[in-house]
C-alpha cells in the first residue's frame, strides 16, 4: 500500500498508479464531504470529478508537510470546488444568504439532541439531514461546525458580513436540531436503544 507521500510523489511524476491510488484512498471521504455541501449524490459526483481533476493538474503546487497534509489539501480543494459549484448554480449567493433566508421567520425552537443521541445515529443519516437544510444554512453550518472555519473566514469566503454568517449558523442549528429530533422521534431511536440495553 502506497504511503501518502509516495502517492503525492507519484502524482507529481504523472504516474498512473499513484493517481489511481489517490482516488481510491480519498474519494469516499471526499464524496461524503462534497455531499454535505451540495446536498445530492448526482451533483456530488460531478464535483468529486472536478475535485480530482484539479488535484491532478495542481499537484505540483502541493508541498508535503507530514501525514494528513495531502488529505487536508484535497479537502480544501473539495470545499472550494463545492462552493464554486453552488455559486455556478446560483444556489449560493450573497443576497440569498443575507436577505432571503434571514427574512424567513425563525424556526420554532425545539429541544436540542444530546451528544448521546447523535452518537446513536449513523453519520450518513446525519449528513442526509444536513443536506435537507437550505443551501445558505447548510453552507455556513458545514464551514463552521464541520470544517472549523471562523465567521470571519466564512464571511470572506462567501462575500457576506460576519453577522450574517452568525445568524445563518444559528438558524441552521435550530433547523437541524428540529430535523434530528423529528428523525429520532419517528424512528424511535431512544426506545430502540433502551430496548437494546434492557
Amino acid at each position, binding site marked *: 500500500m502506497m504511503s501518502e507521500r509516495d502517492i503525492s510523489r507519484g502524482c507529481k511524476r504523472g504516474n498512473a498508479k499513484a*493517481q*489511481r491510488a489517490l482516488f481510491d484512498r480519498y474519494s469516499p471521504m471526499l464524496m461524503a464531504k462534497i455531499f454535505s455541501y451540495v446536498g445530492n449524490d448526482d451533483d456530488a459526483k460531478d464535483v*468529486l470529478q472536478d475535485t480530482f481533476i484539479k488535484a*491532478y493538474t495542481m499537484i505540483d503546487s502541493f508541498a508535503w508537510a507530514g501525514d494528513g497534509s495531502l488529505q487536508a489539501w484535497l479537502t480544501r480543494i473539495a470545499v472550494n470546488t463545492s462552493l464554486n459549484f453552488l455559486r455556478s448554480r446560483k444556489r449560493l449567493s450573497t443576497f440569498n444568504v443575507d436577505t432571503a433566508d434571514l427574512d424567513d421567520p425563525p424556526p420554532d425552537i425545539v429541544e436540542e439532541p444530546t451528544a448521546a443521541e447523535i452518537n446513536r445515529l449513523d*453519520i450518513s443519516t446525519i449528513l442526509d439531514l444536513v443536506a435537507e437544510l437550505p443551501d445558505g444554512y447548510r453552507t455556513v453550518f458545514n464551514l463552521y461546525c464541520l470544517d472549523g472555519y471562523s465567521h470571519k473566514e466564512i464571511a470572506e469566503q462567501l462575500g457576506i458580513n460576519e453577522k450574517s454568517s452568525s445568524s445563518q449558523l444559528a438558524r441552521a442549528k435550530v433547523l437541524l*436540531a428540529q430535523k434530528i429530533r423529528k428523525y429520532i422521534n419517528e424512528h424511535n431511536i431512544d426506545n430502540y436503544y433502551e430496548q437494546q440495553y434492557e
Partner: protein
Amino acid sequence: MSNNMNNNDWLDAIKQKAQDATREVPEGTWEAIAKSVGKQTAPARQARITPRLWRAAAAAAVVAIVATTGFFLLNNRHDGAGQHIASVPEESIPSVNQDTSAPQQPDIVDETMLAQDNSTQPQQSQPYLPPVYDKAPRHNYKEGNTRQSTVDETDIINNELLAANFNEIIDLADYPNEFDPENYYYDIETMLALEELYSQYDNAMNQDAMEPWKSYTDSTYQQYLVYDANARRLAREKMSLTKPGKKTSMLLAAYGNGLISSDRNNTVNGSSAQMLLPSATPPQGMMMAPAAPGMSPSVAPPVNYDYHHHMPLTFGLTFTKRIVGNLYGNVGLNFTSMSSDVTPDNGGDTFKQNIKLIGLPFGVRWNFWRYRGLTTFVGGEGLVERVVDASFGKDDVTIKRLQWSVHATAGAQYNFTKHLGIYIEPKLSHYITTMPLNTLRNEHPFNFNLQMGLSVDF
C-alpha cells in the same frame, strides 16, 4: 435563541462523526476523471494500443537505420575502390585543379593508346584473376586500384595523380607537333621509356584492376614514378631559367598532385603542388626534361593553403527508447554541412571547399532531472558519418572513408507532447578518423559544439 442553543455538545458529536464519514462513490467516476485528465486506466485496453504502435514504429525505424548502415558498409567493402578515399575529377578546374585532359584529349586518344599497348607490348605474366573489370577508360584506371596496396594512403593519392599526369605526358608524346617545341622539353627517349612502362602498367590494369596493382606497386609502377618525378624535377630546374610559354598553360590541368592530401598545418604537400596555379596566374614550370638515370624522385616545395572554416551545421532526427529507469538508448540520422574558404598562398583566388555528410549517431543518455516537459540529461554517443558530397573548388571529390567520432553530451530536452520534443545538446567531441580534405575537424579533433534537433520519444 434559547439557552439550549449554547450547548454545542451535539454539534461536536456531529463534527467528530463527520471526520470519519465516507460515502459510496458512484460507478464510472474514476473512468470519467481519467478520461478528462487524459490518463490511461488499467481496464482501458484501447489505451495500450498506442504504445505498441509506437514500439513497432520505433523498431521499424531502427531496422531501417541499421539496414541502411549495413548497406553503406557492405557496399563500401565490396566496392573495388576499397580504401580509395579520393578521386581526381575528370573535368577541368581552371582555378586550382588541372585535369584538362578531358577537353584536351579526345577519347580516341585513349583508345588508340590502349590498342597500341595491347598489340605491341608483350603481356606481363600475371596470376589468374577474375575479369572484374572490362577495359576501363584510361583516365579511370585509378578506380579500384588501391585496395590491396600496402602504401600509405596519401602516397596512393599522389601516385594516382602522378599516373594521371602521366596520361598527359604520353598524349603529348603522341602529338608533339601540337606544342611549341621551345616550350616542350620532352626527351623522346624518356618519353618512349615512359610509354613502355605505362603500356605495361595500363595493360595489366585493364586485365584486372586489383591484384596487378600490388605487383606493380613494387616494380613497374614504381619505376614509372621514378621516371616521372625525375623528369618533372629537372623540368622545373630548367624552366626556372626559361620564360613561360604562352601555351604551357594547357598543361596546368595535368598536375593535380597534392590536391587531396592535407595535414594539420593547412599545408598541402605534393611533388607538383606548386603547379596548382589559378588560370589567371602564369604557369612557371611546366616543362619536362630528360631524366637522369638513377636519380631519385625529388619533392617539390609545398604550396600552402589558408583555410577559413565556417561553422559546421548539423540537422538530425534522434530516436530515443528507454532501456531501464532513466537510462535511454538513442539512435538517429543527421546531416552535416561543412564549408571552408581556401586561399592558396601563391596568389591564387579563394575558393570554396564544401563537405556534406550523413551520420548515424548511437548512444545512451541518463535523464537526471525532469520538470514537466523539460528534461536534462548527460550521455555518451558514437557517430559514424559518410561523405555524400564533397567539393574542392569546382572539383567534385569522392570520399568513401567513414568518419568515426565519440561525443560526451550534457543537454536539455523540452517535449511539446509526450512523444515529440526538441533538444539542445552541448557536446565535447573527438573525431577519431580524419578526412582527406582539410576540415575543422581535422584541425581540431577535440572540439566543443552545440547541437539542436528534434526528438521522438517512445
